């Protein structure tokens, strides 16, 4: 204990040793505050919370710096569900004594759990709303709100008391008794709760007595005007559990519906879709097959036409060849008519294949051949020798080749052809010359031409 004036530690004396101030009454006030604190602590230990709160309020009114009493008062308020009141006391306590103060921990504990603080705030708001409904005689709404409040904040004593009062107004004494019992479990000697409970007990005694007296009297038989009211067996239901069960049952029913109703229908839809797709593809395949057959038929037709056209073309070509041959023959005849027997013979030689020609054609062909070949041979032979003698070997080869066509197996012509090829090739016996020499040897073995040929071949 310190002096209120100079702060010195006070002794047992009635005056301060430091400044001499009269501290007699001051010390009494401080001691009384501490005494009240002790009493409040004892009450709080036996859960007489409202009694403890009353005593502790007196303690802090005597000495505001009694932080122990103020902290305990805050705890009592907190236990009764009055969070704001508790917080106020702790904040004031911290302001008075900033260092080494338990209120610091209490405040931090509340502030650290914001969710719980919000929940408490919600319950306070609902309580205030319920009180407003009750004052406006809206008992049902007030009861609904109060039920939520006590479920969220099971330590709010006055919520239980107000709820019990409302039940008692509706003669629901059983429910009122339950609420009051719960409130007394928190605040054991709360006078208001005990008063209400006493009233309920009185009413119960009265009703028991009335029942007993009634049972002694004879019971009247029931008449037509008597109304029988069945006993109300309504009980409080655990709404949370019911909700959970309802949700679970709903989920199970939904799952069963999906399995038995929706899934088969979906499967049927999928199957029918597949079938339709398959049918569509089958139709397309059939159409394609038809088209393929048509195309094949067209191809066959076109191939036959092509063959026919080819035959016609060959026929036309043959006719063309024959026409050309007739023209060549007429030209040969014209050359003979102009006394160019060599030219006529050459033309006759160029005609080639006589197959397919008419009789008239062959008659003229043979006549011209007979009349022109000998003279043509002589003329070409003389020209060839002149060219050979003049060393014009290539000219000589040309003339000798015509002679070879007119007389193919003439040894002299064949030998001179070989010889002129050698001379034209600077004396080299090439394959062409060799062929001619071999032919001479083959056709006239033992002849002079064969011997000369053999000489070239060595």
């Amino acid at each position, binding site marked *: 204990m310190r002096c*209120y004036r100079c702060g010195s530690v006070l002794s047992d004396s009635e005056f301060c040793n430091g400044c001499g*101030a*009269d501290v007699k*009454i*001051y010390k009494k*006030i*401080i001691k009384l*505050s501490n005494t009240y604190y002790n009493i409040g602590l004892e009450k709080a230990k036996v859960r007489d919370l409202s009694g403890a709160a009353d005593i502790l309020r007196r303690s*802090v*009114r*005597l*000495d*505001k*710096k009694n932080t122990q009493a103020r902290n305990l008062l805050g705890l009592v308020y907190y236990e009764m569900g*009055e*969070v*704001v*009141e508790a*917080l*106020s006391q702790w*904040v*004031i306590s911290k302001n008075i004594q900033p260092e080494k103060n338990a209120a610091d921990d209490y405040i931090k504990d509340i502030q650290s759990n914001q969710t719980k*603080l919000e929940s*408490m*705030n919600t319950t*306070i*708001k609902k*309580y*205030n709303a319920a*009180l407003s409904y*009750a*004052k406006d005689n809206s008992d049902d709404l007030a009861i609904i709100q109060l039920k939520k409040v006590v479920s969220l904040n099971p330590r709010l004593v*006055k919520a239980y*008391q*107000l709820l019990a*009062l409302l039940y*008692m*107004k509706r003669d629901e004494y059983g429910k009122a008794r339950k609420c009051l019992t719960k409130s007394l479990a928190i605040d054991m000697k709360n006078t*208001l709760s005990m008063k*209400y409970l006493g*009233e309920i007990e009185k009413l119960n005694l009265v009703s028991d007595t009335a029942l007993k007296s009634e049972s002694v009297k004879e019971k009247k038989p029931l008449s037509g005007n008597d109304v029988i009211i069945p006993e109300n067996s309504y009980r409080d239901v655990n709404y949370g559990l019911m909700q959970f069960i309802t949700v679970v049952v709903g989920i199970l029913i939904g799952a069963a519906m999906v399995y038995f109703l929706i899934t088969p229908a979906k499967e049927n839809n999928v199957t029918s879709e597949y079938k339709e797709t398959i049918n569509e593809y089958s139709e397309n395949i059939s159409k394609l097959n038809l088209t393929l057959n048509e195309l094949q038929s067209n191809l066959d037709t076109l191939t036959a036409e092509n063959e026919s056209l080819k035959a016609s073309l060959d026929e036309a070509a043959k006719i063309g060849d024959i026409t050309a041959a007739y023209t060549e023959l007429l030209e040969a005849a014209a050359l003979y008519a102009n006394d160019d027997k060599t030219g006529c013979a050459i033309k006759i030689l160029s005609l080639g294949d006589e197959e397919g020609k008419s009789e008239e054609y062959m008659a003229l062909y043979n006549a011209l051949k007979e009349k022109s070949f000998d003279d043509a041979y002589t003329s070409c032979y003389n020209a060839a020798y002149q060219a050979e003698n003049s060393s014009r070997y290539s000219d000589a080869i040309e003339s000798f080749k015509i002679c070879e066509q007119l007389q193919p197996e003439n040894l002299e012509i064949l030998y001179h052809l070989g010889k002129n090829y050698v001379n034209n090739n600077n004396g080299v016996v090439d394959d062409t010359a060799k062929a001619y020499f071999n032919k001479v040897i083959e056709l006239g073995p033992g002849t002079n031409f064969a011997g000369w040929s053999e000489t070239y071949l060595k």
Partner: protein
Amino acid sequence: MINFDEEIKKFHPSLEVDETEDAIYNNNITDMTDILLSMIKEKEEDK
């Protein structure tokens, strides 16, 4: 017998968390020692 109307008057609204600050500021923490000190001061001034 409980009179509901009389009883309901005993119930007062609780302070909400938002009102904590106002409650602390408006809290009259003048205690007996403050009164005693003011009385001593007055007495000394009279002297």
